[in-house]
């Protein structure tokens, strides 16, 4: 009810409303494997303070919008990564943070290392660096939020459409 007793209703397509909301609050899953996880933690600290962008780390995949794969994924970890991804509710996004998650990094020729997390799960944003600076990760998250505001499809949705075609 409005102040003067009139009912005020905001009419907008649901899609736009969702884009507006998702574009302003991106909750990543606290999921760190290796060195990059330390820089990911740093993002939440006082100097970088991701909370000001609406980026707030969640401990459960059920509550998270995106997954930051921060570190090397090896053959033992890979099934767990996929399981975590599957536990997240759609729409869901994946950020490959650091050279290892992008393509194996300095360990690419190892006998136990998955050369890029995109071999397991669809990736939306790739952040190079070993490890990337916290500013890079924030830039990656903001890119993801910007795409959301523009209504772009997630990598998972794109793959789903492509595989139907």
């Amino acid at each position, binding site marked *: 009810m409005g102040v003067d007793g009139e009912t005020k209703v905001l009419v907008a397509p649901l899609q736009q409303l969702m884009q507006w909301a998702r574009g302003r609050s991106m909750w990543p899953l606290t999921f760190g494997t290796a060195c990059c996880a330390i820089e990911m933690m740093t993002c939440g600290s006082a100097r970088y303070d991701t909370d000001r962008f609406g980026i707030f780390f969640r401990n459960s995949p059920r509550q998270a919008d995106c997954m930051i794969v921060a570190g090397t994924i090896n*053959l*033992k970890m890979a099934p*767990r990564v996929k399981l975590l991804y599957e536990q997240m509710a759609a729409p869901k996004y994946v950020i490959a943070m650091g050279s290892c998650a992008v393509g194996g990094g300095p360990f690419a020729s190892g006998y*136990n290392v998955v050369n890029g997390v995109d071999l397991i799960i669809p990736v939306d944003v790739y952040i190079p660096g070993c490890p990337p600076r916290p500013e890079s990760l924030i830039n990656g998250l903001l890119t993801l939020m910007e795409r959301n505001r523009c209504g772009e499809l997630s990598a998972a949705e794109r793959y789903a459409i492509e595989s139907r075609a």
Partner: protein
Amino acid sequence: MTPAASGTLMTAIEALEGLAGVTGTDPLGPGGMPCGVAAGASLVSAARALKDERGFSHLAMLTAVDGVEESGGLEMVYVFKRREDCAMVALRVWLANEDLRVPSLYTLWSGAGPLEREVYDLFGVVFDGHPNLTRIVLRDDFVGHPLRKSFPMGETGVSPEAVVIAMQGPGTASHTAETPGAVAGVTMPAAFDPFGAAAQPGDPALHADRLILNMGPQHPSTHGVLHIYLALEGETVVAAQPTHGYLHRCIEKLCEKNAYKACTPLLDRCDYVSGFNTELAYMLALEELMGIESTPKADYLRVVFSELVRITSHHTWFAAVGFDTGALTPFLYAFIDREKILDFFETVSGARMMFNYFRPGGVKDDIQPEAAADMIRYLKTFDRQMDDCVSLLTDNEIFRVRMRGVGMLTRKDIADYGVTGPLARASGYDHDLRRDAPYAAYDRIPVNVALAQAGDTFDRYVVRIAEMRESARLALAALEGLPEGPHITAGVPRTIRPPAGAAYREVESPRGELGVYVVSDGSSSPWRLKVRSPAFSNLHVAPALLKGCRVGDVIPALGSVDVVMGEIDR
């Protein structure tokens, strides 16, 4: 070599004399320590004599080296240490390719168990008498033993097809794995049967309150990808077994392909919260192999950065210990200070975490006077900032109640599992390599070792806080006493080819005694590079640490171990 050090060497040589089944000193052993060659059958009796009669109560390192000699086969290398004078002796056992068996030392040291599992996993050596000889870092379905020289190692690593197969669920593997390096679908990890046969489903003896809880590998409070099985009776932990390997990145094998200097970045990523310490151990080992010395200025700079990185490592732990007990603010406070120190690292080395700064014979770049002045200014205010941080926790009633009397470790556990570092010092184990076997410039900068007696989680907290203050004092003393002169020894070649031989050097890392064992065959890349991980031994004390804990206390107790999975799995 100082007179004291040569005296230690003499008594160590005497200790090896007259051991049954051990022949003479071996020139191919790790440099700087006497090394005996034992036959497999007499290994246990020789180790027992060293442990019980000659005071070498600490099994410092256990590893294998593949085929140094033409005849093939591999050698087991054991390094034993006497705590009193830091004397070390090595034993080597030759194993022929046809018969890769050696008796287990598990009966003498519980801590030998996981180390032997690692050697079994990576080399395929079978340890007779081992209670649980299963893979520890690689998947149970991995084919082959990757640190053998015969293991094929391509340039491209794991193929996408192999990853697809690795992702398949149990029982769906369409692939009979024969090729080395292949994995045939997901299997359950090594058996963990704390309740024995009584735990069979439907068994009337099965107590209703019994439960096996899987913690990790994704858990916000396991400090990395650690997976631990907890066997519970109601709320009480009756048995615990850590499982790791979720971050095994083939560092030791990759080092065998890299040039000596190209190994340093990989070692930075090994213990990623205190890279300088691993670098330093590697440089000390390399310098010993090459027969060079670093300059006095480099010695001091190495102390400065080893201590500063110890502070940042403990900052990370301090943040986590707050999280573990439900406090968010310590993280925010600690990371403000951590960032300031990372800025110094960036000024000097160009990187926040992966420094690649130490070089054989010195350090990469000299420190600028302005940077040194900035550091001195910061370190003088360190105690005050530390007071702010600890005021959040030390006198907090809830925190004290959560930490006091939780996760007790006795001095017997410490010796049995080979625990080192703050974890051992909190149980009254008065041992610190910086004071007892000084390296770099620690012989010129005296170290006060923080010590506590209770051996509980709170005392580990107290020891680490005292260490941070001491580290700031040491770094300040090193900066203020920084000698003039070059920062690196002149004439170190670009491509390093140390003469054939081996060297083992240890440093005191934030987690304990971190050793690097380098074997050279005279070529431009190491024949074998092994990191003695303190966090590995500290983590495997978990069965003793967690037994009797309540479920809610598992997190603070494990957090007080301060594990870094990168260093444990390598």
